[in-house]
């Protein structure tokens, strides 16, 4: 049978029939049920935290809430939203995200454009200069000592400057720039444009997708990171949201339980306090994750694009 001789409608019909024959109804049902289960496993923990944050503190402590909040308790949200420390941390994270996104865009574009110039002096040197740090690094201790030597330690610059560039992004942008036709550059040159004009007026407008990918990768990475901040910034006035979260979620220990109370009333009060503090954890998780969780479905397409661009390089 020659496929090419069949009409499109016939082919579609054939495909449809084949699909039905391919798999039993049971198989299809199993596939859909398991898919729903997988989606449930990924979403439920976050949903669970949400309903815990809205339940009464005692229910939240014993975690006997499963589908709907037990009671409706918004005091936790009120308390947290009034907490100045949270807002300082929030402001710091937004500052780190925006500054580092802008700097990463600038450094990757500025370092990538020269690499696309045909007659670049010292290209070999620049290529090796960029490749070596991708494979070897000094490790956190020398980086930490350098930061103290430069007096960056405990200032926002300790996070901003070493995080202002990523060699991986430079390479990503360079390979994107390579796909821009050389004729565009040549005609701009004939019009008398210098390299800065060409980069700004010709290359950047056509590179919006990759720039969006880099900005988003940076913002998500910075928003969710705590490790470097925990090394470089001990001053709480400059700590990002994730360090505030870590103090509340991970390092919170039962000091209260071990404390000695003189009378039963004080002990009861302290326990009440601890129970409501326990619930605040969930409230804080929701407040800190909400912006990301609302936003990510809208920009997931850029992440997919980023992964594909990245895999092209491999």
């Amino acid at each position: 049978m020659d496929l090419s001789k069949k009409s499109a409608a016939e082919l579609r019909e054939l495909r449809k029939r084949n699909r039905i024959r391919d798999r039993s109804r049971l198989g299809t049902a199993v596939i859909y049920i398991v898919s729903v289960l997988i989606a449930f496993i990924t979403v439920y923990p976050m949903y669970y935290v949400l309903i815990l944050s809205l339940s009464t503190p005692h229910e939240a402590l014993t975690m006997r809430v499963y589908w709907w909040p037990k009671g409706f308790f918004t005091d936790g949200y009120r308390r947290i939203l009034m907490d100045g420390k949270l807002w300082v941390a929030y402001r710091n994270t937004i500052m780190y995200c925006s500054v580092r996104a802008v700097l990463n865009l600038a450094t990757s574009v500025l370092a990538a454009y020269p690499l696309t110039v045909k007659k670049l002096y010292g290209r070999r040197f620049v290529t090796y200069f960029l490749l070596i740090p991708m494979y070897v690094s000094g490790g956190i201790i020398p980086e930490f000592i350098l930061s103290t030597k430069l007096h960056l330690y405990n200032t926002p610059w300790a996070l901003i400057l070493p995080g202002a560039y990523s060699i991986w992004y430079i390479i990503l942008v360079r390979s994107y720039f390579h796909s821009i036709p050389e004729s565009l550059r040549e005609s701009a040159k004939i019009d008398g444009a210098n390299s800065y004009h060409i980069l700004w007026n010709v290359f950047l407008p056509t590179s919006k997708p990759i720039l969006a990918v880099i900005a988003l990768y940076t913002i998500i990475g910075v928003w969710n990171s705590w490790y470097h901040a925990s090394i470089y910034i001990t001053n709480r006035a400059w700590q990002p949201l994730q360090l505030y979260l870590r103090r509340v979620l991970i390092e919170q220990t039962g000091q209260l339980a071990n404390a000695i109370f003189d009378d039963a009333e004080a002990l009861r009060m302290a326990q009440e306090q601890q129970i409501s503090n326990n619930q605040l954890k969930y409230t804080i998780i929701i407040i800190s994750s909400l912006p990301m969780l609302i936003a990510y479905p809208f920009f997931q397409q850029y992440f997919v694009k980023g992964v594909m661009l990245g895999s092209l390089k491999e």
Partner: protein
Amino acid sequence: MAEITKPAAALGKKKKRLRQDIVKENIEVWSMMLPVLVLIFIFSYIPLWGVVIAFQNYLPGSPFFDPANWVGLKHIRQFVDSIYFSRLLINTIRLSLLSIAFTFWVPIIFALFLNEVTNLRFKKVVQTCSYLPYFVSSVVVAGMVISFLDVNGIINNLLAAFGATPYEYMTDPAYFPAIYTVTTIWKGFGFESILYFSTLSSIDPSLYEAARIDGANHMRQIWHITLPGLKSVIAIKLIMSVGHILSSNTDMILLLYNSSTYKTADVIGTYVYRLGIQGGKFSYTTAVNLFMSLIAFALTSIANRVSNKLTGSGLW
């Protein structure tokens, strides 16, 4: 005919102008990238030189290299002789092997599985759900794990329904590797699967058509068309994860472990963090880091050589 009879002088002039253009362009682009190169030099190359403190008794405030403080291999020897050497090595390798055995395959199976869903809208929704944990920070993920596994937590509540007695899973070293592995799978599988989805969608549909006509059933189509289509991506990813066998996810471990689970949870990264950053033993921890990087490099070379022998392709 003016072009042909163009005098040599004019031609030379044109060449000269071209040369000038190249020089001008180079000055422009070098001034463009120089600030970035300086930044990279300061924050990537100077720390590389800073590794020399591994061979000295570095004192805070002194330069990276000070011959007066030189002690040679003392720190590396001290580390190899301590109980930590084998413990960290075993813990790190254990977590990495678990990752290669489980975490690595989940996104592949997930992609193959969801590829079977024919309703595109439904597929899209499940995919979007699966990305969610990637956008939740590791601090929050660890916080959830710790509170869910608490004695009063939901996991213990559910297990109690089956007659189990509540247990402190987070403080038992025996459970740490499993908790860590499940957590990393949950956080990453959806996002990791993106690469496999995009590879699957690039497989030529006419191959399936042809297989159907040849009478291949569904499982045979997966076996003979889908899997071979993924083979090269899987191979590259696998070699890369062997290369990372000594670098575990320090970030997540630091959040999940505690002093009672050090026995199975302490890895090179966490040890260096604890003793170096928190304890101030700069030279010793730099030596530990350096020594472990060398072992990692040796392991990667071996993996690469094996892969070159077996599959004919490797990282270099």
